[in-house]
């Protein structure tokens, strides 16, 4: 968020009381017609197919809004897979939420968009995998490019700002120019070029998805030239891939400071990847109210403040700026969520990041996005990309439990 709205009022002996969960993200379902290999959803999502009912979601909205939540993200999976999406949006709008639909566009026909608009939907963010149909379909493992172009037109027709989100990685980052040209043709107002963050399926596929440094630099230069050319007509955001940095991102502005995610089965998390963190028993909205979860639960309080920090973070003058980085990344890379995010070059584990980047320096070979065979070959060279699907999820769960 642009302004930092977090207000810490002192409580007791210097214990900061957190501000409200300004950002509420509802992952309404893990069902999704796409099978993106870079999805951040947990790879074991097939463990639970339970989804909260409409009434439960509405109760969550009311309780969170009463605490001061204002931004609502409706995501998943594919939120359009829920046929009560319009009801949820309508209630959220009435309550005063700014409602953001984060969608692949699959299932968004004119009837539904008209109903969503009428319900008060404020904003649609449409994801694209790449500018070329072949690559788009390969990476999302389905044929959806033409559909998305039609949806983009529909979004314009209903007078929404056209916001495109494209996840960048090794297999499509060389096509930033084509991606931006496509966005311009579609009349996009905003384009977010979001470099893959390595959680969930993206973590599982990291070796195949991590670009080389040269690829990242070329993409950034291309984006910069494009930005100068089109000016304010289309705003371009470039989310820098943190593996190439030496300081970590201020992930979630610290766990438990402004973000609250509710997963399809009602588990409350301080970020959408946090379920992986060991030793934390995240509460479920069916067992506890949002106020109790946010202010009282041990799992939400655990990473607040800096008492949990280890060195080098604990004595670091920058700890108030980046909060030690991402707890999930620290856990994934080092096995301990309380370590410094290894993206930081002050971390004794920073070599784990630089080694991954060094491995990505291998030649990219045939430009994969222009040749499906090339992309498949690139995957086969290392190990195959594992696409997000219930079947692959079950397989990974079985493999994990077998080992």
């Amino acid at each position: 968020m642009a302004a930092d709205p977090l207000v810490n009022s002192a409580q007791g002996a210097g214990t900061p009381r957190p501000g409200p969960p300004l950002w509420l993200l509802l992952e309404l379902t893990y069902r999704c017609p796409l099978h993106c290999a870079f999805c951040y959803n947990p790879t074991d999502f097939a463990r639970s197919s339970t989804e909260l009912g409409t009434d439960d979601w509405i109760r969550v909205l009311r309780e969170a809004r009463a605490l001061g939540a204002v931004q609502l993200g409706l995501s998943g999976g594919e939120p359009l897979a829920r046929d009560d999406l319009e009801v949820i949006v309508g209630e959220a709008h009435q309550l005063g939420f700014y409602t953001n639909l984060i969608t692949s566009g699959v299932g968004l026909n004119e009837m539904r968009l008209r109903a969503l608009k009428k319900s008060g939907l404020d904003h649609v963010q449409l994801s694209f995998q790449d500018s070329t149909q072949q690559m788009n379909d390969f990476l999302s493992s389905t044929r959806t490019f033409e559909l998305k172009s039609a949806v983009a037109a529909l979004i314009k027709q209903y007078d929404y700002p056209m916001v495109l989100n494209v996840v960048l990685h090794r297999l499509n980052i060389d096509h930033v120019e084509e991606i931006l040209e496509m966005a311009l043709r579609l009349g996009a107002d905003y384009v977010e070029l979001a470099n893959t963050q390595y959680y969930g399926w993206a973590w599982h596929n990291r070796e195949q998805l991590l670009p080389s440094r040269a690829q990242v630099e070329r993409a950034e230069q291309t984006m910069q030239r494009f930005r100068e050319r089109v000016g304010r007509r289309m705003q371009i955001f470039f989310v820098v891939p943190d593996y190439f940095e030496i300081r970590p991102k201020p992930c979630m502005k610290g766990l438990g400071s402004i973000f609250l995610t509710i997963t399809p089965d009602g588990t409350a998390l301080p970020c959408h990847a946090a379920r992986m963190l060991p030793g934390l028993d995240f509460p479920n909205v069916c067992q506890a109210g949002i106020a109790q979860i946010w202010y009282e639960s041990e799992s939400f309080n655990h990473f607040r403040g800096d008492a949990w920090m280890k060195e080098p973070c604990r004595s670091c003058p920058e700890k108030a700026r980046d909060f030690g980085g991402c707890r999930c990344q620290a856990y994934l890379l080092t096995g301990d969520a309380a370590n410094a995010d290894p993206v930081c070059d002050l971390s004794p584990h920073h070599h784990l990041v630089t080694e991954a980047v060094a491995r990505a320096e291998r030649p990219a070979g045939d430009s994969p996005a222009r040749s499906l065979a090339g992309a498949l070959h690139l995957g086969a060279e290392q190990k195959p990309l594992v696409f997000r699907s219930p079947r692959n999820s079950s397989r990974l769960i079985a493999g994990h439990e077998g080992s």
Partner: protein
Amino acid sequence: MSDSGVGDISLTAESRPAIGRGFRLQWEAAQNAHVLLYPEGMIKLNGSAGEILKRCDGATTIADITQDLERAFAAANLSGDVQRFVIMAVEKKWLQIRS
């Protein structure tokens, strides 16, 4: 008020600013402030920004907004401040000018 160019927008005392497309202004009791909401973001407004923006309904002219503010806050000569704020807000797309 003289004409002030904002890109290709010309701003006069008779211009009628409205909250920009995609933005929403509302009072947030939890923050004791007006906020401007936009896709995935929020701007917490200070008192004067909130007072100006809540009068930008697309029907009221900048001259009338200024007069109303001067009356409400028993102040004089606010037109320069209001104009500067509106120009900044149009540049940031918080406001749009219809005519």
